[in-house]
């Protein structure tokens, strides 16, 4: 079957209303002479009719809309804390809380850390510099950040340094170090902070585990789908390694 024509993508673009008047006129003139393009146009129209008539346009169920807006905890996703009004308040209050309660992390931050972790798992987003060598990861950050993040090699402890990346968190650019353990990834977010040193604090969000600590003028957030014990061990090794 030799039923092809180099203008088929133009036929489609005309059909989708994406051509300007001149392009459209040229295409119409061509189509008058081209059986392939005529048949394609008919087929596109038939398919559109069928999809728009028969494929459901799913409407947001009223109860889910209410839950999203009122923020009543929901059975299946209760742990998400998806309460809109609560989260709005928490996110907006975060900056205020920094002053009122200087030793407590704003609640929005753990969500931002988790979002950063999930974002990094999108294809091609994990690392900007791919290296298992701390001596090439660390210099990569030079000139990209206004601070020098500590980079440690924990291969001996079973956490393989895979690379690094820039991210944006807490209203500033931050360093993200990526470690692997078996098939699991750990993102360690690091940025400078004037807060005093603090021991590790464990959090859980959406089935992910987070560990937060503060040391040497830096804030650290580790996040992973690893078991809590393993992530704790990662944090412990990191803090011991000198």
């Amino acid at each position, binding site marked *: *079957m030799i*039923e*092809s024509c180099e203008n*088929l*993508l133009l036929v*489609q*673009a005309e059909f*989708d*209303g*994406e051509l300007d008047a001149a392009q459209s006129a040229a295409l119409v003139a061509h189509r008058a002479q081209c059986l*392939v393009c005529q*048949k*394609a146009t008919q*087929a*596109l129209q*038939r*398919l*559109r*009719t*069928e*999809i*728009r008539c*028969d*494929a*459901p*346009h*799913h*409407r*947001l*169920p009223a109860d*889910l*809309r209410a839950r*999203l*807006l009122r923020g009543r905890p*929901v059975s*299946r*996703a209760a742990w*998400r*804390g*998806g309460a*809109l*009004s609560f*989260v*709005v*308040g928490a*996110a*907006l*209050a975060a900056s205020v809380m920094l002053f009122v309660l200087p030793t407590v992390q704003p609640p*929005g931050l753990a*969500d*931002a850390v988790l*979002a950063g972790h*999930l*974002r990094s*798992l*999108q294809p091609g987003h994990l690392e900007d510099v791919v290296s298992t060598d701390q001596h090439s990861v660390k210099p990569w950050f030079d000139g990209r950040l206004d601070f020098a993040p500590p980079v440690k090699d924990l291969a001996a402890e079973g956490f393989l340094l895979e690379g690094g990346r820039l991210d944006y968190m807490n209203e500033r650019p931050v360093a993200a170090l990526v470690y692997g353990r078996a098939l699991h990834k750990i993102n360690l977010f690091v940025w400078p902070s004037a807060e005093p040193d603090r021991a590790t604090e464990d959090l859980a969000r*959406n089935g992910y585990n987070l560990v937060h600590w503060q040391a040497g003028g830096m804030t650290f957030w580790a996040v992973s*789908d690893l078991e809590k014990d393993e992530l704790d061990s990662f944090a412990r090794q990191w803090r011991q390694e000198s």
Partner: protein
Amino acid sequence: MAERDAERDFKTAILPHLDAAYNLARWLMRNPEDAEDVMQDAVVRALTYFAGFRGANPRGWFLQIVRNAAYASMKVNQGLRLVQLASGTDDEPGFGTLGIELADTGDDPESALLKSRSQQNIERLLAALPPELREAIVLRELEELSYKEISQITETPIGTVMSRLWRARRLLAETARREDMQ
């Protein structure tokens, strides 16, 4: 005070697009439970980033967040192996002939039956497309978005959007015709 304003701004920007967002989540996840989780996740993410949103297109912005949440969820549920229609690559505008035979529907019971069968068919065929083709078709045909908006939401060049739409339509048309002939 400022808090109230920000909450109101957020709702003004996002509320009109919740249906479109849910439709996309529902088609990507292919079941109401996962679509609900994705919506919860997307609203939390949107809230987190709303303060930094300066664009003129809140629908595109929110749909992009929903899409990312859906892909993150699919990635987490990697155990799920999906049955997909075979598809070519993004650079291939290549082409068998598009052709789809629609039942000629009148008002008699038999054509009503045929129609419900065709409804199931197109839904099933759409659901069987690979996600990057499925989302292109859903955004174009059901949400009636422009190539440019689809390109923004899917973070994909417009040329790729065009070839994905073409591949999706070719697959749908060919598969539907093959099933009709059986």
